[in-house]
């Protein structure tokens, strides 16, 4: 029973990882940029939500209406102002710029909010659970998993069925041809980053509601999100969902063996996938 419980809890944890990872997957899918500031943006979103709750007393979930648009705008600005110019200098430059952003972000957060651990209060929701055949499942974890699936379905529909989504995929496939068709490449990239960072904001606030976070927590977020993307398969959003779930299960089952081995088990599953199936579990199953 303990093991079944560990797997179920892992699936729920995996929902959180998948939610955190889809922004990373989208930015890489469209622009081939690995955004090392990903984790810091998630943690910054959590701090922004916390600050709003403390300053205005607004309900925790309502902060999403502010945090997501603000972070999406930040994403747009980062792409237009920093990543687009960096792309002109080759593939190394965006990586270095995003690393610089990550260092600036983490240290600014530390300066403003101190290194103390915080959590966004969601009242009784954090402790309420439903019972399923003798197992207890956290309501908030279930909600996170549902939101993760919802975001991924939404992104897929958006990319495949809307005008802008099609333009984004066209830009991804062939930027020059897309430009000839009248698509503004720089604007498309910025929109993609805005959407991606918007999902990061959502994921960050959910993270802040479920666990203690601090300015350096972004490092772990980045690593876990990255592992989910690679385990699932590059360029596939469904793969990212699967990757998140696999990573979550690996960590909780590892922790069931010995609490010290949770994170390590996740890393090892990642390395094993890399060794035997480097293209990931669901490589390019669906265009993203």
């Amino acid at each position, binding site marked *: 029973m303990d093991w079944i419980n560990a797997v179920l809890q892992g699936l729920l944890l995996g929902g959180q990882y998948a939610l955190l990872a889809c922004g990373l997957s989208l930015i890489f899918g469209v622009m081939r940029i690995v955004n090392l500031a990903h984790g810091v943006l998630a943690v910054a979103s959590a701090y922004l939500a916390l600050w709003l709750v403390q300053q205005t007393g607004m309900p925790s979930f309502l902060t999403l209406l502010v945090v997501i648009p603000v972070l999406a705008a930040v994403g747009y600005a980062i792409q237009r102002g920093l990543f687009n*110019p960096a792309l002109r200098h080759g593939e190394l430059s965006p990586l270095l710029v995003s690393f610089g952003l990550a260092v600036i972000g983490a240290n600014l957060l530390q300066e403003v909010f101190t290194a103390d651990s915080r959590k966004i209060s969601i009242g009784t929701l954090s402790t309420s659970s439903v019972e399923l055949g003798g197992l207890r499942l956290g309501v908030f974890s279930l909600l996170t998993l549902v939101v993760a699936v919802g975001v991924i379905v939404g992104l897929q529909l958006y990319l495949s069925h809307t005008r802008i989504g099609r333009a984004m995929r066209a830009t991804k496939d062939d930027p020059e041809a897309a430009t000839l068709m009248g698509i503004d490449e720089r604007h498309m990239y910025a929109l993609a980053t805005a959407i991606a960072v918007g999902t990061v904001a959502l994921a960050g606030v959910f993270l802040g509601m479920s666990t203690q976070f601090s300015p350096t927590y972004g490092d772990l977020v980045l*690593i876990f999100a*990255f592992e989910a993307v690679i385990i699932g398969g590059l360029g596939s959003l469904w793969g990212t969902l699967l990757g998140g779930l696999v990573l979550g299960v690996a960590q909780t089952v590892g922790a069931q063996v010995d609490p*010290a081995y949770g994170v390590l088990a996740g890393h090892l599953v990642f390395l094993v996938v890399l060794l035997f199936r480097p293209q990931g579990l669901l490589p390019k199953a669906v265009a993203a």
Partner: protein
Amino acid sequence: MTVNTRTGPGTLKVVRGGWPSLAGGGVLAAIVVFLAAAPWFVFSPGDVTNLVTLFALIILGTAWNLMAGYGGLVSIGQQAFIGAGGYGVIKLADVVGLPIPLAVVAAGAVCALLALPTSFLLFRLVGGYFAIGTWVVAEVFKLVTQELPGFGGGSGLSLTAFQGVDRVTRIATVYYLALALAVLVVLATYVLMRSRIGLGLTAIRDDKVAAASLGVAVRRSQRIVYVAASGGAGLAGALIAVNGLRVSPDSMFSVQYTAFMIFIVVIGGLGTIEGPILGAVIFFALQQLLDSYGTWYLVALGAVAIAVVLLAPRGLWGLAARGRYEIFPVGHTVRPPT
């Protein structure tokens, strides 16, 4: 060195270096001689210990540049080998009983050996995903080190081999070891870059696909620099450990080292031998000056690094030398007939 491409009047000359490079090299040699003589009449023991940090930074920058600047491999996980070098030197000195200088060099060699199997795993990833993959490996190194029996868990290890050695002898040993290793690492990089492998690496730096099409063994060259650079990171880690006398998982395997290396190389000039040395000196000076500002100093460094990447992608050395001057002549220049 002069190579005649044609004979007869109006001969084009292909030259490498020349007296300006010799002069630059002479200045550097003079600085090294000064540094070798200085501890006993200029610097306090505290300064001498600080300078060991500078030498370790030069090694770190040079090694990271060899990998990223020439090999096109951006790793953000070299702290794996910094940590392995740090823990390795303590085990080699305290348990195996090697003398400190030998233990430091052996720790570097162990890191290079560790990097070889690691490379077969990580080379399945390219670009940015290679970068984060190296970080995952560094985290695995850290977590495994914490769990291994005899490695002190979360609190780490202390170096005991220096017990009973008086402070001046200890500081002098570490200082001269660090200075010698920094000089050797820079010279070894220079020799490597002048070799056939180096020529291939320079081609990889400029255009990987074109290099491969001209017969450069890109994968093999990248593996060589990855292993060499990891050995360098291990040497630096070992020096940091014998200088600080203790190691802990969180400090030795900190991703902060990667931030430092990137700043040093990017600010100094990616893909040059001089760049990382200049970058390390600037970084070290800023660190000494701005240490009291705490995190703001890292915020400023991040901003400067972004500005340099976008506005002066060849770094400060690239700005100053404009690609025409090299202290370490690696490239060839065509001179018009005289």
